[in-house]
């Protein structure tokens, strides 16, 4: 059932799926070739965020063109929660695809596979889950146009984020030595749990919102 709904999303945004798959290959490729020292965290972050943005937005747009189609699905034996979950599964699928492509590229081009492991993946996962986890319920509740607004802010933050961040922290001297002392294993577990938590909560909220929506 769920998989069929995921397939539905792929079907209605066929062209964009293709473009995104290329983009996921292109971005890291470009960065690795042009600035190999940067390979690692930031390119991966960009790849994930942009591919998720691109594709999920495209799907939402196609859905918005035919707003009653989801009504037909819900009048059929598809449950409303399956419709919601499918979107979240799709998010994970895109993420997984990014990981795989990136890992392959690192191996093939950079010969530095150890630079791409859980310590890179998990923070990106958490970051994108947070953005997506905030975005999705908003889109379910208020529709595409208003949710897009939030998205714009998200992109804005992403572009200026690191700089702002850096400036902020330049003035604050927090002793990170304690943080550094925590083993990476524990850090990973915390990141993983946090991701799961945000993901799960967002999905529950979206499900609740959608179950009450007038179709």
């Amino acid at each position, binding site marked *: 059932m769920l998989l069929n709904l995921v397939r539905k999303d792929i079907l*209605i945004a066929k062209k964009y799926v293709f473009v995104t798959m290329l983009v996921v290959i292109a971005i890291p490729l470009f960065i690795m070739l042009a600035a190999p020292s940067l390979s690692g965290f930031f390119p991966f972050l960009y790849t994930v965020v942009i591919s998720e943005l691109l594709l999920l937005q495209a799907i939402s747009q*196609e859905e918005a*063109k*035919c707003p*009653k*189609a989801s009504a*037909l*699905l819900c009048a059929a034996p598809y449950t409303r929660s399956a419709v919601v979950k499918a979107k979240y599964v799709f998010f994970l699928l895109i993420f997984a695809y990014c990981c795989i492509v990136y890992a392959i590229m690192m191996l093939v081009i950079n010969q530095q596979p150890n630079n791409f492991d859980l310590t890179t993946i998990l923070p990106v996962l958490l970051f994108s889950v947070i953005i997506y986890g905030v975005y999705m319920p908003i889109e379910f509740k208020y529709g595409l146009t208003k949710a897009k607004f939030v998205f714009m802010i998200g992109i804005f933050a992403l572009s200026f984020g690191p700089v702002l961040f850096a400036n902020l922290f330049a003035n604050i001297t927090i002793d990170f030595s304690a943080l550094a002392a925590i083993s990476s294993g524990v850090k990973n577990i915390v990141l993983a749990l946090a991701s799961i938590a945000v993901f799960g909560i967002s999905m529950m909220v979206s499900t609740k919102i959608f179950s009450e929506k*007038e179709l």
Partner: protein
Amino acid sequence: MDHILEVTGLNNSYKDFSLTDVSFTLPEDCITGFIGVNGAGKTTTIRTILGLTHKTSGSIKIFGKDMESNEQELKNRIGIVLDEGYFYDELTMDEMKSIIAPAYSGWSDKDYKEYLDRFSLNPRQKIATLSRGMRMKFALTLALSHGADLLIMDEPTSGLDPLIRSQLLEIMKDYMKQGGKGVFFSTHITSDLDKIADMLILIHGGKILFEQDRDILLDNYRLVKGDSKALNNENKKLFLNIQTTDFGFAGVTDKLLEVQKSMSDILVERPTIEDIMLAYIEGGQK
């Protein structure tokens, strides 16, 4: 005889409109016409039955089972034809079918292909390029290809030419021949109902005005025409509704004998469903 669909005390409230105490039952093996003017509440009722919009109170039972607790199982047995706009326009019919079909356990590709053939539809055609009539036929194809026991259709014939309408009615009749099936369709085109409906339910302003066997309705009511001068305050009450012109009056009544006693020289005819429907609606507005 079981009831295929049982709606009890449905209440729903929107900004400008509400459904008030909507209740009716559909007997098995019947085609039921759900009639009313535009905006009377037909679509709202159907959407509520299908769970697309929420009700404030009331219960819906299909095949004797409560809709809320058996939603998936029941929706599996219902074939749906809704007004246009419920498909992903950019997809082809086959692609749309590949999304819908897996949801139904009784899906039959064989039936699907047969109906496509019968309707002369090319499955690789994009839905956006289909005419209204073809869209309806496609919706019907999907609805009839999973062994549904109940067909729920919202204004399936509106905007269609008489040929397609009569084809649709034929298909409904064929569908019923299988036995154990039911059809519930809403329309404001009462001439279709004259040909095919067994039961009639009239809704107006969110309220059910009558629920009746078609032939009993037509047996009980008569269209009476006569001289306007024969009307007085007493005998006016015998009519559901009266229309007067300079040349006489016409009224619908179920109390023919009393009318005949009260005035002579009248013309008595069997009314059409539309006559009765309008009489109920206009009569109720007094």
